[in-house]
Protein backbone atom coordinates (compact mmCIF):
# COMPACT_ATOMS: atom_id res chain seq x y z
CA UNK A 1 0.00 0.00 0.00
CA UNK A 2 2.55 2.50 1.24
CA UNK A 3 4.91 1.69 -1.60
CA UNK A 4 2.09 2.04 -4.03
CA UNK A 5 1.17 5.52 -2.83
CA UNK A 6 4.73 6.76 -2.80
CA UNK A 7 5.19 5.46 -6.34
CA UNK A 8 2.59 7.87 -7.66
CA UNK A 9 4.00 11.09 -6.29
CA UNK A 10 2.75 10.56 -2.73
CA UNK A 11 -0.77 12.02 -2.63
CA UNK A 12 -2.01 13.32 0.78
CA UNK A 13 -2.64 10.42 3.14
CA UNK A 14 -6.32 11.33 3.28
CA UNK A 15 -6.55 10.15 -0.29
CA UNK A 16 -5.17 6.63 -0.32
CA UNK A 17 -6.62 3.99 -2.57
CA UNK A 18 -6.56 0.25 -2.45
CA UNK A 19 -4.00 -1.48 -4.65
CA UNK A 20 -6.46 -2.58 -7.34
CA UNK A 21 -7.59 1.03 -7.73
CA UNK A 22 -4.03 2.10 -8.44
CA UNK A 23 -3.57 -0.80 -10.76
CA UNK A 24 -6.54 0.51 -12.73
CA UNK A 25 -5.74 4.21 -12.49
CA UNK A 26 -2.11 4.13 -13.59
CA UNK A 27 -1.21 0.57 -14.53
CA UNK A 28 2.25 1.26 -15.90
CA UNK A 29 3.81 2.95 -12.85
CA UNK A 30 2.07 0.46 -10.62
CA UNK A 31 3.47 -2.56 -12.45
CA UNK A 32 6.86 -0.85 -12.65
CA UNK A 33 6.79 -0.33 -8.92
CA UNK A 34 5.94 -3.89 -8.08
CA UNK A 35 8.62 -5.11 -10.47
CA UNK A 36 11.37 -2.95 -8.97
CA UNK A 37 11.24 -3.38 -5.19
CA UNK A 38 13.08 -0.94 -2.94
CA UNK A 39 15.17 -3.50 -1.11
CA UNK A 40 17.26 -5.97 -3.11
CA UNK A 41 16.20 -8.89 -0.91
CA UNK A 42 12.60 -8.58 -2.17
CA UNK A 43 11.84 -10.52 -5.32
CA UNK A 44 10.34 -8.48 -8.17
CA UNK A 45 6.72 -9.53 -8.54
CA UNK A 46 3.90 -8.70 -10.94
CA UNK A 47 0.42 -7.45 -10.11
CA UNK A 48 -0.82 -10.99 -10.26
CA UNK A 49 1.75 -12.02 -7.67
CA UNK A 50 3.84 -14.00 -10.11
CA UNK A 51 7.54 -13.48 -10.64
CA UNK A 52 8.52 -12.27 -14.14
CA UNK A 53 9.64 -15.71 -15.28
CA UNK A 54 6.72 -17.53 -13.69
CA UNK A 55 3.86 -18.78 -15.85
CA UNK A 56 0.35 -19.65 -14.75
CA UNK A 57 -0.31 -23.32 -14.04
CA UNK A 58 -1.93 -25.03 -17.01
CA UNK A 59 -4.73 -27.52 -16.68
CA UNK A 60 -5.89 -29.75 -19.52
CA UNK A 61 -9.02 -31.92 -19.67
CA UNK A 62 -9.85 -33.98 -22.73
CA UNK A 63 -12.86 -35.74 -24.29
CA UNK A 64 -15.36 -33.77 -22.25
CA UNK A 65 -17.61 -33.32 -25.30
CA UNK A 66 -19.45 -36.32 -26.68
CA UNK A 67 -20.59 -34.84 -29.99
CA UNK A 68 -17.12 -33.97 -31.28
CA UNK A 69 -14.61 -36.59 -32.42
CA UNK A 70 -12.05 -35.05 -30.14
CA UNK A 71 -12.22 -32.27 -27.61
CA UNK A 72 -10.24 -30.57 -24.93
CA UNK A 73 -10.59 -27.86 -22.31
CA UNK A 74 -7.52 -25.86 -21.36
CA UNK A 75 -7.30 -23.50 -18.40
CA UNK A 76 -4.36 -21.24 -17.63
CA UNK A 77 -5.27 -18.82 -14.89
CA UNK A 78 -8.40 -17.05 -16.03
CA UNK A 79 -7.96 -17.96 -19.67
CA UNK A 80 -10.23 -20.84 -20.57
CA UNK A 81 -10.56 -22.25 -24.06
CA UNK A 82 -12.55 -25.18 -25.40
CA UNK A 83 -11.48 -27.00 -28.55
CA UNK A 84 -13.58 -29.42 -30.53
CA UNK A 85 -12.35 -31.46 -33.48
CA UNK A 86 -14.86 -32.78 -35.98
CA UNK A 87 -13.93 -34.98 -38.87
CA UNK A 88 -15.82 -34.75 -42.14
CA UNK A 89 -15.28 -36.60 -45.39
CA UNK A 90 -13.98 -35.03 -48.57
CA UNK A 91 -14.37 -37.30 -51.60
CA UNK A 92 -11.60 -36.81 -54.13
CA UNK A 93 -14.31 -36.23 -56.72
CA UNK A 94 -15.12 -32.92 -55.09
CA UNK A 95 -11.51 -31.75 -54.98
CA UNK A 96 -10.68 -29.34 -57.80
CA UNK A 97 -7.43 -30.18 -59.64
CA UNK A 98 -6.96 -33.37 -57.63
CA UNK A 99 -3.76 -35.13 -58.63
CA UNK A 100 -3.84 -38.82 -57.65
CA UNK A 101 -0.34 -39.62 -56.43
CA UNK A 102 1.46 -42.79 -57.25
CA UNK A 103 1.88 -43.86 -53.65
CA UNK A 104 0.45 -47.10 -52.37
CA UNK A 105 -1.05 -48.18 -49.11
CA UNK A 106 2.11 -49.99 -48.14
CA UNK A 107 5.02 -47.65 -48.66
CA UNK A 108 5.71 -45.85 -45.41
CA UNK A 109 8.88 -44.15 -46.57
CA UNK A 110 10.05 -40.59 -46.03
CA UNK A 111 8.85 -39.07 -49.27
CA UNK A 112 5.40 -40.57 -48.81
CA UNK A 113 5.22 -38.69 -45.56
CA UNK A 114 6.32 -35.56 -47.39
CA UNK A 115 3.59 -36.22 -49.96
CA UNK A 116 1.07 -36.53 -47.16
CA UNK A 117 2.15 -33.18 -45.75
CA UNK A 118 1.74 -31.67 -49.17
CA UNK A 119 -1.76 -33.12 -49.42
CA UNK A 120 -2.64 -31.57 -46.09
CA UNK A 121 -1.69 -28.19 -47.52
CA UNK A 122 -2.98 -28.50 -51.04
CA UNK A 123 -6.37 -29.93 -50.15
CA UNK A 124 -6.73 -27.82 -47.00
CA UNK A 125 -7.52 -30.78 -44.78
CA UNK A 126 -7.00 -28.89 -41.53
CA UNK A 127 -9.47 -26.11 -40.77
CA UNK A 128 -8.76 -24.33 -37.50
CA UNK A 129 -10.93 -21.42 -36.44
CA UNK A 130 -10.82 -19.38 -33.27
CA UNK A 131 -13.96 -17.74 -31.94
CA UNK A 132 -13.36 -14.91 -29.51
CA UNK A 133 -16.72 -13.19 -29.80
CA UNK A 134 -18.32 -15.12 -26.98
CA UNK A 135 -18.28 -12.33 -24.46
CA UNK A 136 -15.21 -14.01 -22.97
CA UNK A 137 -13.98 -10.50 -22.17
CA UNK A 138 -15.69 -7.11 -22.30
CA UNK A 139 -13.98 -6.18 -25.55
CA UNK A 140 -15.17 -9.29 -27.38
CA UNK A 141 -18.90 -9.02 -27.95
CA UNK A 142 -20.74 -11.13 -30.52
CA UNK A 143 -22.55 -9.88 -33.57
CA UNK A 144 -19.38 -8.45 -35.05
CA UNK A 145 -17.11 -10.11 -37.63
CA UNK A 146 -13.99 -11.78 -36.23
CA UNK A 147 -11.55 -9.22 -34.92
CA UNK A 148 -8.04 -8.87 -36.29
CA UNK A 149 -6.83 -10.69 -33.19
CA UNK A 150 -9.12 -13.64 -33.85
CA UNK A 151 -8.07 -13.80 -37.49
CA UNK A 152 -4.40 -13.54 -36.61
CA UNK A 153 -4.70 -16.30 -34.05
CA UNK A 154 -6.49 -18.56 -36.53
CA UNK A 155 -3.76 -17.95 -39.09
CA UNK A 156 -0.98 -18.61 -36.59
CA UNK A 157 -2.57 -21.89 -35.52
CA UNK A 158 -3.06 -22.82 -39.17
CA UNK A 159 0.51 -22.04 -40.11
CA UNK A 160 1.89 -23.86 -37.09
CA UNK A 161 -0.24 -26.93 -37.76
CA UNK A 162 1.28 -27.20 -41.20
CA UNK A 163 4.71 -25.81 -40.41
CA UNK A 164 5.31 -28.14 -37.48
CA UNK A 165 3.73 -31.09 -39.28
CA UNK A 166 1.79 -32.12 -36.22
CA UNK A 167 -0.76 -34.31 -37.99
CA UNK A 168 0.42 -37.19 -40.12
CA UNK A 169 -1.57 -36.77 -43.30
CA UNK A 170 -1.43 -40.47 -44.08
CA UNK A 171 -3.89 -41.06 -41.27
CA UNK A 172 -6.48 -38.97 -43.09
CA UNK A 173 -6.47 -40.93 -46.33
CA UNK A 174 -9.24 -43.38 -47.06
CA UNK A 175 -8.05 -46.16 -49.35
CA UNK A 176 -10.01 -48.40 -51.62
CA UNK A 177 -8.76 -51.38 -53.60
CA UNK A 178 -11.06 -52.02 -56.58
CA UNK A 179 -11.34 -55.82 -56.54
CA UNK A 180 -12.06 -57.34 -59.89
CA UNK A 181 -14.09 -60.48 -60.54
CA UNK A 182 -12.32 -63.70 -59.71
CA UNK A 183 -12.75 -65.28 -63.16
CA UNK A 184 -11.42 -62.20 -64.90
CA UNK A 185 -8.63 -62.18 -62.40
CA UNK A 186 -7.74 -65.73 -63.41
CA UNK A 187 -7.51 -65.05 -67.09
CA UNK A 188 -5.67 -61.79 -66.41
CA UNK A 189 -1.94 -61.78 -66.51
CA UNK A 190 -0.46 -61.43 -63.04
CA UNK A 191 1.06 -57.96 -63.19
CA UNK A 192 -1.95 -56.63 -65.08
CA UNK A 193 -4.07 -57.81 -62.19
CA UNK A 194 -1.77 -56.03 -59.81
CA UNK A 195 -2.28 -52.96 -61.93
CA UNK A 196 -6.01 -53.15 -61.42
CA UNK A 197 -5.86 -54.01 -57.77
CA UNK A 198 -3.66 -51.08 -56.97
CA UNK A 199 -5.27 -49.33 -53.99
CA UNK A 200 -6.23 -45.73 -54.53
CA UNK A 201 -7.22 -42.86 -52.28
CA UNK A 202 -10.94 -42.19 -52.66
CA UNK A 203 -11.49 -39.66 -49.93
CA UNK A 204 -9.84 -37.68 -47.17
CA UNK A 205 -10.84 -36.77 -43.66
CA UNK A 206 -11.10 -33.03 -43.17
CA UNK A 207 -10.50 -31.98 -39.58
CA UNK A 208 -12.55 -28.98 -38.48
CA UNK A 209 -10.77 -27.63 -35.43
CA UNK A 210 -12.97 -25.10 -33.67
CA UNK A 211 -11.77 -23.15 -30.66
CA UNK A 212 -14.11 -21.32 -28.36
CA UNK A 213 -12.81 -18.94 -25.71
CA UNK A 214 -14.99 -19.17 -22.62
CA UNK A 215 -12.86 -16.80 -20.61
CA UNK A 216 -10.07 -14.56 -21.83
CA UNK A 217 -7.25 -13.23 -19.69
CA UNK A 218 -4.24 -12.77 -21.89
CA UNK A 219 -1.85 -15.03 -23.75
CA UNK A 220 -4.50 -16.59 -26.00
CA UNK A 221 -2.11 -18.33 -28.36
CA UNK A 222 -0.42 -20.58 -25.83
CA UNK A 223 -3.75 -21.72 -24.46
CA UNK A 224 -5.26 -22.14 -27.91
CA UNK A 225 -2.33 -24.15 -29.20
CA UNK A 226 -2.28 -26.37 -26.14
CA UNK A 227 -6.00 -26.96 -26.63
CA UNK A 228 -5.57 -27.79 -30.31
CA UNK A 229 -2.81 -30.26 -29.54
CA UNK A 230 -4.71 -31.92 -26.72
CA UNK A 231 -7.87 -32.16 -28.83
CA UNK A 232 -5.97 -33.67 -31.75
CA UNK A 233 -4.37 -36.24 -29.49
CA UNK A 234 -7.82 -37.00 -28.18
CA UNK A 235 -9.40 -37.27 -31.63
CA UNK A 236 -10.65 -40.68 -32.68
CA UNK A 237 -12.05 -41.05 -36.18
CA UNK A 238 -14.49 -43.83 -37.02
CA UNK A 239 -13.32 -46.56 -39.34
CA UNK A 240 -14.36 -45.52 -42.84
CA UNK A 241 -14.43 -47.52 -46.03
CA UNK A 242 -15.53 -46.85 -49.58
CA UNK A 243 -18.68 -48.64 -50.60
CA UNK A 244 -18.49 -49.06 -54.39
CA UNK A 245 -22.15 -49.93 -55.04
CA UNK A 246 -23.44 -46.99 -52.98
CA UNK A 247 -20.53 -44.87 -54.24
CA UNK A 248 -20.05 -43.22 -50.91
CA UNK A 249 -17.92 -43.55 -47.83
CA UNK A 250 -19.56 -45.33 -44.94
CA UNK A 251 -18.26 -45.56 -41.39
CA UNK A 252 -18.59 -48.29 -38.83
CA UNK A 253 -19.58 -47.66 -35.23
CA UNK A 254 -16.93 -48.71 -32.75
CA UNK A 255 -13.29 -49.38 -33.45
CA UNK A 256 -12.53 -45.71 -33.86
CA UNK A 257 -8.82 -45.14 -34.17
CA UNK A 258 -6.84 -42.14 -33.06
CA UNK A 259 -4.76 -39.82 -35.19
CA UNK A 260 -1.01 -40.09 -35.52
CA UNK A 261 0.31 -36.93 -33.83
CA UNK A 262 3.95 -36.06 -34.32
CA UNK A 263 5.79 -34.86 -31.23
CA UNK A 264 4.59 -32.38 -28.65
CA UNK A 265 5.34 -28.83 -29.77
CA UNK A 266 4.52 -26.38 -26.99
CA UNK A 267 4.02 -22.66 -27.41
CA UNK A 268 5.48 -20.27 -24.89
CA UNK A 269 4.86 -16.54 -25.06
CA UNK A 270 6.21 -13.56 -23.23
CA UNK A 271 5.88 -9.79 -23.39
CA UNK A 272 8.56 -7.19 -22.81
CA UNK A 273 7.77 -4.52 -20.24
CA UNK A 274 9.79 -1.35 -20.56
CA UNK A 275 10.63 1.03 -17.76
CA UNK A 276 9.85 4.18 -19.70
CA UNK A 277 6.35 3.85 -21.03
CA UNK A 278 6.76 6.29 -23.89
CA UNK A 279 10.51 6.05 -24.21
CA UNK A 280 12.16 6.01 -27.60
CA UNK A 281 12.63 2.36 -28.33
CA UNK A 282 16.10 1.26 -29.33
CA UNK A 283 17.98 3.43 -26.92
CA UNK A 284 17.78 0.20 -24.96
CA UNK A 285 20.46 1.14 -22.47
CA UNK A 286 19.09 3.25 -19.60
CA UNK A 287 15.66 1.83 -20.24
CA UNK A 288 15.28 -1.20 -18.02
CA UNK A 289 13.02 -3.96 -19.21
CA UNK A 290 11.46 -7.12 -17.86
CA UNK A 291 10.47 -10.17 -19.89
CA UNK A 292 7.10 -11.18 -18.48
CA UNK A 293 6.33 -14.81 -19.14
CA UNK A 294 2.73 -15.77 -19.92
CA UNK A 295 1.34 -12.20 -19.67
CA UNK A 296 -2.25 -11.62 -18.59
CA UNK A 297 -4.72 -9.17 -20.11
CA UNK A 298 -3.58 -6.09 -18.18
CA UNK A 299 0.09 -6.78 -18.87
CA UNK A 300 -0.51 -7.32 -22.58
CA UNK A 301 -2.05 -3.87 -22.59
CA UNK A 302 1.22 -2.39 -21.32
CA UNK A 303 3.66 -4.25 -23.53
CA UNK A 304 4.40 -3.75 -27.20
CA UNK A 305 7.10 -6.28 -27.88
CA UNK A 306 5.94 -9.87 -27.74
CA UNK A 307 7.61 -13.17 -28.49
CA UNK A 308 6.24 -16.64 -28.98
CA UNK A 309 8.51 -19.63 -29.23
CA UNK A 310 7.29 -23.13 -30.02
CA UNK A 311 9.67 -25.87 -28.91
CA UNK A 312 9.56 -29.63 -28.86
CA UNK A 313 11.87 -31.47 -26.50
CA UNK A 314 10.54 -34.93 -27.32
CA UNK A 315 13.82 -35.84 -28.95
CA UNK A 316 17.06 -35.52 -27.06
CA UNK A 317 17.89 -32.30 -28.87
CA UNK A 318 15.46 -29.43 -28.49
CA UNK A 319 13.74 -28.69 -31.78
CA UNK A 320 12.32 -25.24 -32.37
CA UNK A 321 9.15 -25.24 -34.44
CA UNK A 322 8.47 -21.55 -34.59
CA UNK A 323 9.72 -18.19 -33.39
CA UNK A 324 7.50 -15.14 -33.63
CA UNK A 325 8.96 -11.92 -32.31
CA UNK A 326 7.58 -8.51 -33.15
CA UNK A 327 6.91 -5.04 -31.92
CA UNK A 328 10.23 -4.13 -30.36
CA UNK A 329 13.98 -4.22 -30.46
CA UNK A 330 14.83 -5.30 -26.95
CA UNK A 331 14.97 -9.01 -27.61
CA UNK A 332 18.20 -9.57 -29.46
CA UNK A 333 19.81 -12.83 -30.37
CA UNK A 334 21.11 -13.65 -26.91
CA UNK A 335 17.84 -12.94 -25.15
CA UNK A 336 15.93 -15.04 -27.64
CA UNK A 337 18.32 -17.93 -27.18
CA UNK A 338 17.90 -17.53 -23.44
CA UNK A 339 14.15 -17.49 -23.85
CA UNK A 340 14.24 -20.76 -25.73
CA UNK A 341 15.67 -22.20 -22.55
CA UNK A 342 12.69 -20.82 -20.61
CA UNK A 343 10.39 -22.36 -23.20
CA UNK A 344 11.96 -25.75 -22.52
CA UNK A 345 10.91 -25.32 -18.89
CA UNK A 346 7.36 -24.50 -19.99
CA UNK A 347 7.42 -27.57 -22.23
CA UNK A 348 7.89 -29.82 -19.23
CA UNK A 349 5.00 -28.18 -17.37
CA UNK A 350 2.67 -28.71 -20.32
CA UNK A 351 3.90 -32.25 -20.83
CA UNK A 352 3.07 -32.82 -17.18
CA UNK A 353 -0.43 -31.41 -17.63
CA UNK A 354 -1.02 -33.40 -20.81
CA UNK A 355 -0.29 -36.49 -18.76
CA UNK A 356 2.10 -38.33 -21.08
Amino acid at each position, binding site marked *: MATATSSTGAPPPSLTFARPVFAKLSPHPYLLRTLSPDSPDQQPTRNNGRSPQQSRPIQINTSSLSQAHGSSLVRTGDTTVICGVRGELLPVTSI*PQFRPHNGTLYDQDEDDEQRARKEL*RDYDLLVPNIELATGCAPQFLPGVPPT*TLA*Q*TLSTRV*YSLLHGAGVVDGRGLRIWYTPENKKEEGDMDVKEEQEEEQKPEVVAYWVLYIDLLFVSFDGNPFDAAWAAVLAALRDTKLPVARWDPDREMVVCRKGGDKGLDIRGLPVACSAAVFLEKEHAEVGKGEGNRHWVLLDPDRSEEGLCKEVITVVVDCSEEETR*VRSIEKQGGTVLGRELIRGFIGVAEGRWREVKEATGI
Partner: protein
Amino acid sequence: MTVTTAPEAALGVLPRADGSAKYSHAGYTVTASVNGPIEAQRRDEHPYEAHVDVIVRPAAGVGGTRERHLESILQSSLTQIVLVKNFPRSLVQIVLQVEDAPENDYVNTKLVQASLNFAIMPALFQTSVLALLSAGVPMRATATATAVAIVSRDGTKTSVVDPSPRDVEIARSVHVLAFTSHDELLLAESEGDFTVQEWNHVYETAKDVCCRPVPTKEGMEMILDDEHTNGPDLRHFLRSTMENKVASDLHWK
Protein backbone atom coordinates in the same frame (compact mmCIF):
# COMPACT_ATOMS: atom_id res chain seq x y z
CA MET B 1 12.57 -15.50 -61.91
CA THR B 2 15.86 -16.36 -60.27
CA VAL B 3 16.71 -15.45 -56.73
CA THR B 4 19.95 -13.68 -57.48
CA THR B 5 18.38 -10.70 -59.21
CA ALA B 6 19.24 -7.44 -57.52
CA PRO B 7 16.32 -5.54 -55.94
CA GLU B 8 14.80 -2.70 -57.90
CA ALA B 9 12.85 0.21 -56.52
CA ALA B 10 11.15 3.40 -57.68
CA LEU B 11 9.96 6.12 -55.37
CA GLY B 12 7.01 8.46 -55.72
CA VAL B 13 5.28 6.36 -58.34
CA LEU B 14 1.82 7.43 -57.20
CA PRO B 15 1.20 11.15 -57.69
CA ARG B 16 -1.73 11.52 -55.30
CA ALA B 17 -0.30 9.76 -52.27
CA ASP B 18 1.93 11.57 -49.77
CA GLY B 19 4.53 8.98 -50.48
CA SER B 20 4.77 5.83 -52.52
CA ALA B 21 7.22 3.22 -53.66
CA LYS B 22 7.39 0.32 -56.03
CA TYR B 23 9.79 -2.42 -55.07
CA SER B 24 10.52 -5.68 -56.79
CA HIS B 25 12.84 -8.38 -55.58
CA ALA B 26 13.01 -12.16 -55.58
CA GLY B 27 10.10 -12.34 -57.97
CA TYR B 28 7.80 -10.18 -55.89
CA THR B 29 6.65 -6.76 -56.98
CA VAL B 30 4.86 -4.60 -54.45
CA THR B 31 3.54 -1.07 -54.67
CA ALA B 32 2.96 0.89 -51.51
CA SER B 33 1.26 4.19 -50.83
CA VAL B 34 1.67 6.14 -47.61
CA ASN B 35 -0.66 8.85 -46.42
CA GLY B 36 -0.08 10.62 -43.20
CA PRO B 37 -0.02 11.95 -40.70
CA ILE B 38 -3.75 12.40 -41.30
CA GLU B 39 -6.75 12.65 -39.01
CA ALA B 40 -7.62 9.35 -37.39
CA GLN B 41 -11.08 7.99 -36.80
CA ARG B 42 -11.94 8.08 -33.13
CA ARG B 43 -11.96 4.28 -33.19
CA ASP B 44 -8.20 3.91 -33.65
CA GLU B 45 -7.19 7.24 -32.19
CA HIS B 46 -4.40 7.09 -29.62
CA PRO B 47 -3.93 10.01 -27.20
CA TYR B 48 -0.12 9.85 -27.23
CA GLU B 49 0.78 8.21 -30.50
CA ALA B 50 0.05 8.13 -34.17
CA HIS B 51 -1.73 4.98 -35.27
CA VAL B 52 0.06 3.16 -38.06
CA ASP B 53 -2.49 1.43 -40.23
CA VAL B 54 -1.29 -1.18 -42.71
CA ILE B 55 -3.45 -2.67 -45.44
CA VAL B 56 -2.21 -5.57 -47.55
CA ARG B 57 -3.90 -6.37 -50.84
CA PRO B 58 -3.00 -9.69 -52.44
CA ALA B 59 -2.07 -10.00 -56.12
CA ALA B 60 -5.37 -11.72 -56.88
CA GLY B 61 -8.68 -11.72 -55.08
CA VAL B 62 -9.49 -10.08 -51.78
CA GLY B 63 -7.52 -10.33 -48.58
CA GLY B 64 -8.27 -13.04 -46.07
CA THR B 65 -7.07 -14.02 -42.62
CA ARG B 66 -3.53 -14.36 -43.92
CA GLU B 67 -3.43 -10.73 -45.02
CA ARG B 68 -4.78 -9.67 -41.63
CA HIS B 69 -1.90 -11.49 -39.99
CA LEU B 70 0.68 -9.94 -42.32
CA GLU B 71 -0.83 -6.54 -41.58
CA SER B 72 -0.60 -7.02 -37.84
CA ILE B 73 3.04 -8.12 -38.09
CA LEU B 74 4.02 -5.18 -40.29
CA GLN B 75 1.98 -2.79 -38.20
CA SER B 76 3.66 -3.72 -34.93
CA SER B 77 7.13 -3.52 -36.53
CA LEU B 78 6.68 -0.26 -38.42
CA THR B 79 5.17 1.40 -35.36
CA GLN B 80 8.59 0.88 -33.81
CA ILE B 81 10.58 2.77 -36.44
CA VAL B 82 8.10 5.58 -37.15
CA LEU B 83 8.32 8.40 -34.62
CA VAL B 84 4.71 7.91 -33.62
CA LYS B 85 5.07 10.14 -30.55
CA ASN B 86 5.39 13.17 -32.78
CA PHE B 87 1.84 12.88 -34.09
CA PRO B 88 -0.60 12.04 -31.31
CA ARG B 89 -4.20 11.33 -32.31
CA SER B 90 -3.26 10.99 -35.96
CA LEU B 91 -3.01 8.22 -38.49
CA VAL B 92 -0.33 7.02 -40.85
CA GLN B 93 -1.87 4.78 -43.45
CA ILE B 94 0.16 2.37 -45.52
CA VAL B 95 -1.50 0.48 -48.35
CA LEU B 96 0.45 -2.35 -49.92
CA GLN B 97 -0.65 -3.83 -53.20
CA VAL B 98 1.07 -7.03 -54.26
CA GLU B 99 1.39 -6.75 -58.01
CA ASP B 100 3.40 -9.77 -58.94
CA ALA B 101 4.33 -12.96 -57.17
CA PRO B 102 6.67 -15.60 -58.58
CA GLU B 103 4.71 -18.21 -60.51
CA ASN B 104 5.08 -21.62 -59.01
CA ASP B 105 4.23 -24.76 -60.92
CA TYR B 106 4.77 -27.09 -57.97
CA VAL B 107 2.38 -25.61 -55.44
CA ASN B 108 -1.14 -25.25 -56.78
CA THR B 109 -1.76 -21.56 -56.34
CA LYS B 110 -5.41 -21.85 -57.26
CA LEU B 111 -6.83 -22.08 -53.78
CA VAL B 112 -6.01 -19.23 -51.45
CA GLN B 113 -4.67 -20.73 -48.28
CA ALA B 114 -4.57 -19.23 -44.85
CA SER B 115 -1.03 -20.28 -44.12
CA LEU B 116 1.50 -17.49 -43.80
CA ASN B 117 3.62 -16.77 -46.84
CA PHE B 118 7.06 -16.01 -45.44
CA ALA B 119 8.79 -15.27 -48.71
CA ILE B 120 6.63 -12.23 -49.39
CA MET B 121 7.19 -10.57 -46.03
CA PRO B 122 10.56 -8.93 -46.79
CA ALA B 123 9.19 -7.42 -49.99
CA LEU B 124 6.19 -5.97 -48.15
CA PHE B 125 8.38 -4.72 -45.35
CA GLN B 126 10.98 -3.15 -47.61
CA THR B 127 8.35 -1.48 -49.76
CA SER B 128 6.62 0.10 -46.82
CA VAL B 129 9.90 1.42 -45.45
CA LEU B 130 10.72 2.96 -48.83
CA ALA B 131 7.22 4.43 -49.09
CA LEU B 132 7.54 5.91 -45.59
CA LEU B 133 10.83 7.47 -46.58
CA SER B 134 9.37 8.95 -49.74
CA ALA B 135 6.43 10.31 -47.72
CA GLY B 136 8.92 12.01 -45.43
CA VAL B 137 7.37 10.48 -42.34
CA PRO B 138 9.84 11.05 -39.49
CA MET B 139 11.48 7.78 -38.49
CA ARG B 140 14.00 6.98 -35.80
CA ALA B 141 15.67 4.44 -38.05
CA THR B 142 15.32 2.74 -41.35
CA ALA B 143 15.04 -0.99 -41.47
CA THR B 144 15.81 -3.86 -43.77
CA ALA B 145 14.36 -7.33 -43.92
CA THR B 146 15.19 -10.58 -45.61
CA ALA B 147 14.01 -14.14 -45.77
CA VAL B 148 16.21 -17.17 -45.28
CA ALA B 149 15.28 -20.77 -45.84
CA ILE B 150 17.18 -23.83 -44.69
CA VAL B 151 16.99 -26.40 -47.44
CA SER B 152 18.47 -29.85 -47.16
CA ARG B 153 19.68 -30.75 -50.62
CA ASP B 154 21.04 -34.30 -50.86
CA GLY B 155 21.63 -34.54 -47.14
CA THR B 156 23.54 -31.31 -46.60
CA LYS B 157 21.63 -28.39 -45.16
CA THR B 158 22.20 -25.12 -46.99
CA SER B 159 20.69 -21.76 -46.18
CA VAL B 160 19.09 -19.93 -49.08
CA VAL B 161 18.55 -16.18 -49.00
CA ASP B 162 15.33 -14.92 -50.59
CA PRO B 163 14.07 -18.42 -51.31
CA SER B 164 11.84 -19.13 -54.28
CA PRO B 165 8.46 -20.69 -53.61
CA ARG B 166 9.89 -24.03 -54.60
CA ASP B 167 12.62 -23.62 -51.98
CA VAL B 168 10.05 -22.66 -49.38
CA GLU B 169 8.05 -25.75 -50.21
CA ILE B 170 10.91 -28.16 -49.72
CA ALA B 171 12.60 -26.16 -46.99
CA ARG B 172 12.96 -27.62 -43.52
CA SER B 173 12.50 -24.19 -42.01
CA VAL B 174 11.88 -20.65 -43.22
CA HIS B 175 12.87 -17.47 -41.42
CA VAL B 176 12.19 -13.79 -41.86
CA LEU B 177 14.31 -11.30 -39.98
CA ALA B 178 14.31 -7.52 -40.00
CA PHE B 179 16.95 -5.24 -38.56
CA THR B 180 16.88 -1.53 -37.85
CA SER B 181 19.73 0.66 -39.04
CA HIS B 182 20.96 0.46 -35.41
CA ASP B 183 21.58 -3.25 -36.07
CA GLU B 184 18.78 -4.18 -33.68
CA LEU B 185 16.65 -7.22 -34.37
CA LEU B 186 13.25 -5.72 -35.11
CA LEU B 187 11.31 -8.69 -36.40
CA ALA B 188 11.92 -12.41 -36.27
CA GLU B 189 9.49 -14.93 -37.72
CA SER B 190 10.48 -18.54 -38.15
CA GLU B 191 8.58 -21.70 -38.90
CA GLY B 192 9.46 -25.26 -39.68
CA ASP B 193 11.79 -27.54 -37.79
CA PHE B 194 15.18 -26.25 -36.69
CA THR B 195 17.66 -26.14 -33.87
CA VAL B 196 19.05 -23.18 -31.97
CA GLN B 197 22.33 -23.53 -33.87
CA GLU B 198 20.56 -23.41 -37.22
CA TRP B 199 18.70 -20.32 -36.13
CA ASN B 200 21.99 -18.84 -35.06
CA HIS B 201 23.43 -19.38 -38.48
CA VAL B 202 20.32 -17.94 -40.10
CA TYR B 203 20.70 -14.91 -37.87
CA GLU B 204 24.24 -14.39 -39.08
CA THR B 205 23.30 -14.72 -42.72
CA ALA B 206 20.35 -12.39 -42.44
CA LYS B 207 22.33 -9.82 -40.51
CA ASP B 208 25.01 -9.90 -43.18
CA VAL B 209 22.42 -9.24 -45.86
CA CYS B 210 20.60 -6.53 -43.93
CA CYS B 211 23.25 -4.70 -41.97
CA ARG B 212 26.42 -4.66 -44.01
CA PRO B 213 28.18 -1.43 -43.00
CA VAL B 214 27.26 1.27 -45.48
CA PRO B 215 30.32 1.91 -47.59
CA THR B 216 31.70 5.41 -47.71
CA LYS B 217 32.64 6.88 -51.07
CA GLU B 218 36.11 5.40 -50.99
CA GLY B 219 34.67 2.14 -49.71
CA MET B 220 33.01 1.58 -53.07
CA GLU B 221 35.70 -0.68 -54.42
CA MET B 222 35.50 -2.65 -51.22
CA ILE B 223 31.89 -3.46 -52.09
CA LEU B 224 32.81 -4.51 -55.58
CA ASP B 225 35.25 -7.16 -54.43
CA ASP B 226 32.71 -8.13 -51.79
CA GLU B 227 30.50 -9.84 -54.36
CA HIS B 228 31.09 -13.39 -53.14
CA THR B 229 28.97 -12.86 -50.03
CA ASN B 230 25.55 -14.22 -50.77
CA GLY B 231 22.49 -12.03 -51.07
CA PRO B 232 22.24 -8.37 -51.96
CA ASP B 233 23.40 -5.59 -49.66
CA LEU B 234 20.02 -4.22 -48.71
CA ARG B 235 21.12 -1.34 -46.53
CA HIS B 236 23.37 -0.03 -49.23
CA PHE B 237 20.60 -0.52 -51.73
CA LEU B 238 18.22 1.45 -49.53
CA ARG B 239 20.70 4.28 -49.20
CA SER B 240 21.57 4.48 -52.88
CA THR B 241 17.92 4.42 -53.85
CA MET B 242 17.26 7.41 -51.65
CA GLU B 243 20.35 9.21 -52.89
CA ASN B 244 19.28 8.78 -56.50
CA LYS B 245 15.80 10.00 -55.64
CA VAL B 246 17.09 13.08 -53.91
CA ALA B 247 19.50 13.73 -56.75
CA SER B 248 16.77 13.50 -59.37
CA ASP B 249 14.52 15.76 -57.29
CA LEU B 250 17.23 18.39 -56.97
CA HIS B 251 18.63 18.12 -60.47
CA TRP B 252 17.38 21.61 -61.33
CA LYS B 253 19.74 23.14 -58.80
